């Protein structure tokens, strides 16, 4: 059983983060990216061609993370691989002891730097989750037996901040029924959307079935917020948030304050089981955010247990 699965089963508060995209430089590059955040994290996402840009494969990065003493979550998107390739990557990952998966639809090829590429989407994300569960139960989608069955801990993503808002918790429940045990929620700059999602997640029974981990984005300027608002599919940054950062004497500081407020709000929502942190740059932002929120380093939490007390 992966330690992420054990911690979530025990009810521990967990902190995951996104590994910045890796292109080259080998293990030293992995270590360099990991160093400033490593102490605080329970697991790290090996991302799958984020924003439809080619990078080192999530399977390769997941293995490197594991070799570096960090528990990986292997992301898989439906954009670049058909059902055969997705299954072979999951089974291949399990062979290397990588159990945690995060199954996503994925941004379209038009979001990336090779928009002329063929988009695949042979499966959609709920189908990918169901296929992963089938593998964990000892069979390929075809029904062909896998013996012994690979051990997997299946997760996915849902976006509380995209229309149709009133349907998002039901879509998340569909993923839970398909086999997702945890959901990393997309970055959401509007607290009222997350609240609405969490209310619905209590109402439809989602909270009792899956661990919900809202994502928090740490950036350093109003320009970066504007970029996210305009270029990242499914994320809306309110104009007043951008204006607030623009008006600040120290934009980096103000961005950090915004992230702290959103994180504290997310942690105050009943049913939230941890946070997923995303920082585009390799810097001390993630460690600083955890310190500010009163989240101790991983070793300390593992030794003493931790229930977060929110104070910002």
């Amino acid at each position, binding site marked *: 059983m992966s330690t992420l699965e054990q911690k979530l089963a025990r009810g521990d508060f967990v902190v995951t983060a996104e590994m910045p995209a890796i292109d080259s430089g080998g293990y030293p590059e992995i270590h360099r990216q990991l160093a400033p955040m490593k102490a605080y994290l329970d697991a790290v996402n090996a991302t799958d061609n984020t924003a439809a840009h080619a990078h080192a494969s999530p399977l390769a990065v997941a293995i490197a993370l594991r070799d570096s003493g960090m528990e990986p979550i292997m992301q898989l998107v439906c954009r670049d691989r058909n059902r055969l390739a997705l299954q072979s990557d999951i089974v291949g990952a399990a062979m290397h002891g990588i159990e945690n998966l995060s199954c996503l*639809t994925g941004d379209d090829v038009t979001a990336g730097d090779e928009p002329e590429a063929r*988009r695949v989407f042979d499966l959609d994300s709920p189908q990918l989750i169901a*296929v992963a569960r089938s593998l964990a139960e000892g069979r390929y989608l075809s*029904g062909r037996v896998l013996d012994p069955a690979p051990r997997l801990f299946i997760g996915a993503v849902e976006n509380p901040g*995209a*229309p*149709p808002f009133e349907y998002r918790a039901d879509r998340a429940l569909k993923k839970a029924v398909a086999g997702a045990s945890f959901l990393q929620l*997309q970055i959401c700059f509007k607290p009222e959307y997350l609240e609405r999602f969490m209310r619905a997640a209590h109402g439809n029974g989602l909270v009792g079935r899956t661990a919900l981990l809202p994502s928090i984005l740490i950036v350093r300027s109003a320009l970066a917020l504007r970029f996210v608002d305009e270029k990242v599919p499914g994320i*809306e940054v309110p104009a007043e948030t951008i204006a607030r950062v623009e008006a600040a004497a120290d934009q980096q500081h103000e961005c950090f304050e915004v992230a702290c407020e959103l994180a504290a709000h997310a942690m105050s929502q009943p049913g939230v089981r941890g946070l997923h942190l995303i920082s585009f740059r390799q810097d001390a932002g993630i460690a600083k955010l955890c310190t500010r929120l009163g989240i101790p380093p991983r070793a300390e939490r593992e030794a003493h247990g931790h229930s977060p007390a929110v104070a910002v």
Partner: protein
Amino acid sequence: MGALERIEHAVKGPVWGCQMCGQCVLHSTGLTCPMNCPKTLRNGPCGGVRADGGCEVKPEMRCVWLKGYERSRRLPLWQDHFNDLRPPVDNQLEGSSSWKNLVTGRDRQTPRGWADEAGGHVDA
């Protein structure tokens, strides 16, 4: 394309933008054809739907699944089917008549490793 396929496409093409996937799920998707989603998603909207309801890929087009969701809420029938976990598309059926596949049951054949609705597996 045979006569049946031509008739089906003549009827469903102009009304629903039918793509002749051969495994029609229109009743469960608010009478909105999911094969018009640029990602051909069968199980609801992706996370890229724009704030104004536009499609991530084609901003000028309203998200197919947003339309499907809204229409499904207005239908007197099949509302609950919207949340069904629809199986992966059988690409062998592309271009064939979904009417014929419905009658023969071919459109309900899924791979043996596919879970049924209750979450268990159907053994062939």
